[in-house]
């Protein structure tokens, strides 16, 4: 680094931060400068190993780092100043905590002697971010900094991954101390995630799977977090056992959507076959998922007749929402490997022909049906067209939150993991655009598309400027129905169609807005023009805002009405006004 003194490990705190980033293989960080991080920015200026991407709002830095992390499997890094810089990071940190994304945030803090004095741009950053990080640290002594930074990377990336924050007062950044490279002893002895599953439990799981008549695999984001080996093993397990597989929103891509055992996504807007299979199964293997309330529907009616096996690296996920019969605490990849080994040695494929016949009947209900129109673009049709146009291309998809997100999950087929970046747990509108920035930074030559809504995209639209500055050719594919569609849908279904504040009044002209940013704006209103416009969008090697005008009042189906069980789904062909009203009449009271 800039330090050329006799001992190369003697350096300032600011230099240590940059050095630690390099030692952990970080090549790109996302950040925004300010008073309390100026020494770090000065170090960044004087080196070329770490590229800094300047965002337009700290929330953008956080989501960009998340997108970067999810598409690479490496930790994302964000750098922000004290006070508002840190508080603007609260949303991405919480988002990363809910979705188990490895994120390292370094925040500046006012000098140590001013802490607690209500100094300019001071806030209790570690206090504020304590509940939204896996762990956080305030470093008061420059000689602790190296250890804390290494520990931060270790904690963020091991066990159940998650966000961490290191708060560094400005005087600590200026002070000189001793740096050391990462070493084992940098980590709390109290932190030791369990990776290997219990052998007895694994045997129990295998014997349940082998003797099952109506089994199902329900996989989640944990499989993707575990790494490429886990995905490979999951696919092999499905192949070896012949068991049908469904997945959560977070787990899409672990098993290919074109695979013959694929049931589609499960849960509130999952397919009929996936939810019915979950409801009627006799053995359920849950891998790296957490029985979230969008998945289970009514808890006391969730898959009532099944023995449940649950693989999770986080013991607190076990028996949190649903009581399971065979809990296995460990890393998904590791445990799946052990299960496969035992299965291949001691068991044979369960005979589930009748079960597949039953599933075929559910599939025949065609629960993702929608009626195409020649006059107006249906949002489902737009996603399908986008999928067809990008099929076989090196594509990454991010989303915002709402109807468009669910349609993307339903109609875009993911073949590989790490290709799908969406805010699942926290449901953060405004996630997708900055996440696309992060993904494009990690994969400069790939096609990166943010499937967005007209309301969500406005929450972080300022990051278009970042995309233009760094020549990141992200495509923002806006399903513009001029509503906060999911809010409007719930108001229609549950609140007497009183559309309170869900109409997107005074929408900007997205084409002009794109041009104002120096990006490309495209608009399409007719179904006949859709494919051509998508082709044009893909061909442009610059950032694009694509204003796809879609049917305004389309609802997202199928749907488990609130307070109902998996086998009480509302299918699109039944969803006329009367049936919908009836389905939600009971649920309304319960939800």
């Amino acid at each position, binding site marked *: 680094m800039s330090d050329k003194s006799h001992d190369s490990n003697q350096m300032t705190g600011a230099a240590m931060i940059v050095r630690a980033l390099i030692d952990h293989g970080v090549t790109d960080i996302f950040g925004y400068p300010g008073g309390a991080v100026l020494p770090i920015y000065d170090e960044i200026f004087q080196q070329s190993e770490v590229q800094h991407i300047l965002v337009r709002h700290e929330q953008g830095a956080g989501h960009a780092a998340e997108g970067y992390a999810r598409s690479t499997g490496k930790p994302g890094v964000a750098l922000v100043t004290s006070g508002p810089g840190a508080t603007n990071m609260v949303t991405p940190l919480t988002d990363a905590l809910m979705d188990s994304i490895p994120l390292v945030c370094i925040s500046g803090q006012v000098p140590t002697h001013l802490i607690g004095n209500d100094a300019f741009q001071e806030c209790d950053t*570690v*206090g504020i971010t*304590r*509940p939204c990080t*896996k*762990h956080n640290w*305030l470093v008061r002594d420059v000689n602790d900094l190296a250890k804390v930074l290494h520990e931060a990377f270790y*904690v963020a990336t091991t*066990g*159940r991954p998650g966000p961490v924050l290191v708060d560094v007062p400005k005087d600590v950044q200026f002070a000189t101390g001793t740096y050391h490279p990462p070493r084992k002893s940098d980590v*709390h*002895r*109290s*932190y030791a995630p369990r990776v290997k599953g219990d052998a007895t439990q694994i045997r129990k799981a295998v014997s349940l799977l082998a003797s099952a008549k109506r089994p199902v695999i329900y996989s989640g984001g944990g499989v993707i977090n575990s790494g490429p080996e886990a995905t490979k093993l999951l696919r092999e397990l499905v192949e070896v056992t012949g068991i049908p597989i469904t997945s959560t929103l977070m787990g899409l891509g672990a098993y290919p959507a074109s695979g013959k055992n694929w049931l589609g996504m499960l849960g509130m807007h999952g397919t009929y076959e996936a939810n019915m299979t979950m409801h009627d199964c006799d053995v359920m293997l849950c891998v790296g998922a957490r029985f979230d*309330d969008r998945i*289970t*529907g*009514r*808890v*006391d009616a969730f898959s009532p007749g099944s023995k449940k096996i649950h693989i999770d690296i*986080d*013991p*607190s996920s*076990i*028996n*949190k929402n649903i*009581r399971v019969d065979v809990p296995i605490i460990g890393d998904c990849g590791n445990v799946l490997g052990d299960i496969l080994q035992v299965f291949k040695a001691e068991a044979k494929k369960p005979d589930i022909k009748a079960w597949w016949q039953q599933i075929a009947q559910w599939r025949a209900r065609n629960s993702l049906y929608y009626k195409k129109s020649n006059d107006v673009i249906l949002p489902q049709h737009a996603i399908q067209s986008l999928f067809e146009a990008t099929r076989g291309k090196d594509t990454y998809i991010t989303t915002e939150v709402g109807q468009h997100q669910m349609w993307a999950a339903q109609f875009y087929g993911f073949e590989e993991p790490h290709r799908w970046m969406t805010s699942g747990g926290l449901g953060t509108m405004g996630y997708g655009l900055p996440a696309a920035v992060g993904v494009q930074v990690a994969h400069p030559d790939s096609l990166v598309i943010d499937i967005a809504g007209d309301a969500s995209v406005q929450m972080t639209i300022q990051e278009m400027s970042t995309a233009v500055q760094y020549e990141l050719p992200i495509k923002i594919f806006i399903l513009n129905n001029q509503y906060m569609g999911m809010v409007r849908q*719930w108001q229609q279904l*549950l*609140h007497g169609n009183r559309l309170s504040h869900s109409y997107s009044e005074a929408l900007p002209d997205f084409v002009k807005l794109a041009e104002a940013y120096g990006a490309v704006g495209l608009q399409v209103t007719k179904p006949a023009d859709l494919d051509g416009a998508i082709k044009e969008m893909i061909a442009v090697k610059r950032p694009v805002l694509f204003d796809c005008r879609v049917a305004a009042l389309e609802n997202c189906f199928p749907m488990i009405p*609130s*307070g109902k069980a998996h086998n009480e789904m509302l299918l699109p062909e039944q969803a006329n006004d009367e049936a919908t009203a009836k389905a939600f009449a009971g649920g*309304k*009271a*319960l*939800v």
Partner: protein
Amino acid sequence: MNQPASAYFIEERHDPNETHTLAVLVQNEPGVLARVIGLFSGRGYNIESLTVSETEAQKHLSRITIVTTGTPMVIAQIKHQLDRMVPVYQVVDMTQTRRSIERELAMVKVRGQGEHRVESLRLADAFRARVIDATTESFVFEITGNTDKINQFIDLMRPLGLVEVSRTGVAAIGRGPEGM
């Protein structure tokens, strides 16, 4: 039953609550107590009593004793949630092991004269409470015991001129030669 419409599945749970005493061994670092308390408030768990003190200074270890109530599923969650915190070494459910001793210390100030004053002294003697401060019209008693015993003593002092009480909260340790 008329519940409001919402995007969440609202259900009522009727499992009976249990009271458990948890011993938590933690790294004594800034903010560790805030983390533990924040977990309880953030996730809506109860704290009936909480005591904390450094127990092994060279190793920077502190011991937190928490008395909490919840359904068996919630108690299990609390233990897992505590255990996965980075600075937490170990969580032991002292109630589940059924081989633990619990003690609490209280200082009880009583003001009175005549027969009330004599009676409070007599009761203190019966409860093995010590007088640690006295004036002509008041006593401060020090009493050690389990929570029930202390509650009982305080109830008895109330009509005799109870002024105020200061309690340490519960500390617990396992019986026998083994440590936690």
